[in-house]
């Protein structure tokens, strides 16, 4: 439901670009790119979104917030460097008088940043996703300032994003609704949601056909190959069952049946239909001789179609073999 804010932003950026030209956020800020709200902290980027879970549930906002309420700011890094950088987050009342056009220079000129500050999260290194929560006690214009410090050089990168809490301009709402409706319509057409509604039925039928085909197909193959390399496996503790950690014995041989020794093997896997990997990180723990290798830490957590990829590196080169598996 990012639509409303998207529409609002699009409209705004249209108006803004009609009157002003040149970059508004020279030092980084929040921008709308396609359907994604992005914060740019200098060259570092993160997916940015704000929630007001108490009043708007799962609806995402990019900058402006409809109500003075509990607000959760989320940054999902698009640049790995941010994972290791201390990041701090400040929200101030807009005392610059610049509104939407406030920039870092304007912030630097504020004498008493402390008294303008309504929220401050000290710098923390957050390796996964950066989140802060602030409950706004009043509506008005605010500025968010995110700074990230490069640990090696101590260089500070900052992003500044002015925003409003409690939308104003209610007098124009009928106009907005028309714009919204048009955009929604365009979105439905463009995103294929309209088509998906009908298509979903077809793809479901297709996937159940595929499922049947897999059922009829011969029992799970225990061997697969990539040109010169043949990989087979056995499971000493009985056929693989879901939700039980167990081991495999991998057997590697060349196309003409010569066992492959001294190989470095990496194993990954997942369910392509569900878009997720194995729940564990299995590893080859022992070379048993005669082309056999012990693979520990295998576990499946769902029935269905799995694919295991075995990457084999030897002195001669590397190859990847895919083992399909139906549980």
């Amino acid at each position, binding site marked *: *439901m990012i639509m409303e804010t998207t529409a609002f932003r699009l409209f705004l950026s249209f108006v803004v670009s009609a009157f002003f030209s040149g970059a508004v956020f020279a030092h980084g800020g929040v921008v709308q790119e396609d359907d994604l709200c992005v914060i740019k902290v200098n060259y570092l980027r993160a997916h940015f979104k704000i*929630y007001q*879970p*108490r009043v708007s*549930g*799962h609806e*995402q906002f990019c900058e402006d917030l409809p109500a003075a309420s*509990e607000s*959760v700011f*989320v940054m*999902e890094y698009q640049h790995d460097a941010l994972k290791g950088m201390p990041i701090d987050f400040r929200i101030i009342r807009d005392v610059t008088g610049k509104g939407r056009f406030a920039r870092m220079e304007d912030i630097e000129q504020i004498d008493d940043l402390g008294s303008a500050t309504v929220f401050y999260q000290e710098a923390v290194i957050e390796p*996964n*996703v950066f*989140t*802060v*929560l602030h*409950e706004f006690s009043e509506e008005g214009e605010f500025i968010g300032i995110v700074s990230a410090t490069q640990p090696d050089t101590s260089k500070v990168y900052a992003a500044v994003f002015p925003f409003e809490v409690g939308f104003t301009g209610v007098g124009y709402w009928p106009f907005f609704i028309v714009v919204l409706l048009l955009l929604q319509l365009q979105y439905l057409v463009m995103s294929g949601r309209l088509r998906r509604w009908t298509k979903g039925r077809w793809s479901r039928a297709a996937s159940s056909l595929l499922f049947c085909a897999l*059922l009829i197909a011969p029992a799970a193959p225990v061997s697969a190959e990539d040109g010169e390399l043949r990989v087979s496996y056995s499971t000493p503790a009985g056929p693989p069952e*879901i*939700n*039980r*950690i167990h081991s495999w014995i991998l057997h590697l041989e060349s196309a003409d049946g010569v066992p492959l020794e001294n190989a470095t093997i990496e194993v990954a896997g997942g369910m392509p239909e*569900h*878009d*997720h*990997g*194995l*729940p*564990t*990180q*299995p*590893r080859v723990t022992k070379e048993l001789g005669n082309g056999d290798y012990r693979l*520990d*830490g295998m*576990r499946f*957590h*769902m*029935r*269905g179609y799995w694919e295991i990829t075995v990457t084999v590196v030897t002195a001669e080169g590397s190859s990847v073999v895919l083992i399909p598996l139906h549980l």
Partner: protein
Amino acid sequence: MRSLLLKLGVVVVVIVVIVIGWQNRSTEPPVWTDAEIDVLRSLSLASLPALPPDPSNAVADNAQAAAFGERLFFDPRLSANGGIACSTCHQPARHFTDGLPKGQAIGTSKRNTPSIVGSAYSPWLYWDGRRDSQWAQALSPLEDPNEHGSSRLQVVAVIAGDDAYRSAYRALFGEFGDISGDDPVALNNAFANVGKAIAAFERTLLPVASRFDDYVDAVADGNRQQRESLFSDDEVWGLRLFIGEANCTQCHNGPLFTNNEFHNTGVLSSPGELPDKGRVAGVQEALADPFNCLGDHSDDPARQCAELTFVRTGPELIGAVRTPSLRNVELTAPYMHKGQAATLAEALRHYNEAPDAMIGHNEAKPLELSTRELRQVEAFLKTLTAPSVPNAI
């Protein structure tokens, strides 16, 4: 004018009647295919494998340890204020939950109190899996300032100071050693042993068969009459949706209706709190826990700790929590890791919409089920209620 209104009224009434009739139309329940019967069997308690061994706990299957652990589980003297026991939150009468959004003792727990029935089957404990055995888990509430609020020093002192406990302890684990606090290794050892006794008790808490399990037996036996007397048409349709179109068995699978794995299902954050980071944080805690399977207090000389050794992390685990068991779910409201859903209907509405997750990526897809179908799934979930509590005390 009057007659026009009348006609309109008639039309409206007819439409309403048709809609209501359609919503409540009776439809013959499906005939199960062999593949479906196979899935049903995999969900029945009859398929529950033997308890996985816990080599890190030498007394895991010792009956004396279980009896000792049972007393500790119900003993409020292990808490800072003498008023909190494990059973304050894990109440047997409520299938070892407490009916609250979040656990409540000296303070408020971080999350919702899960049932502990069948938790011996899980390689990971807690919503975020931050402990890797029942015994390591049992030590945490004792020292959590919001729960028992006690300390290992006090807990061990209570046991050493009670005649019955002291002799039970010695019979199982030998002498206490220096538990004055001067010798942290001895104290930690004794503390770990307390956890091992509690775990021995918890291992005996296994799910009791429900109407669903009887139904699967009847289906497998081809006993039509019994099948029909056990499940209403709505329950059958609900079950069919559960294993089919609604994809619930992607995660709620096996006889415990959980894969004990971590998934992000996009549940809204709890009031006043940041969205729960879930497994990405929990995995680091489990690896750092001094009482984990690889630590000094494990009883397994071989340190066979496959789950911990081959553990995986990654961005998919942001905001992911462990799939809860759905057995007795009717009686364990409120639902989700912070009690965000008050009723089953609310939980199902969430799945029907499957909104984008606040953090990470929601794995569940919108279901687009009708209200009728949602009611049927709910009706099925209620067949998982057991007639009694394990080890009713």
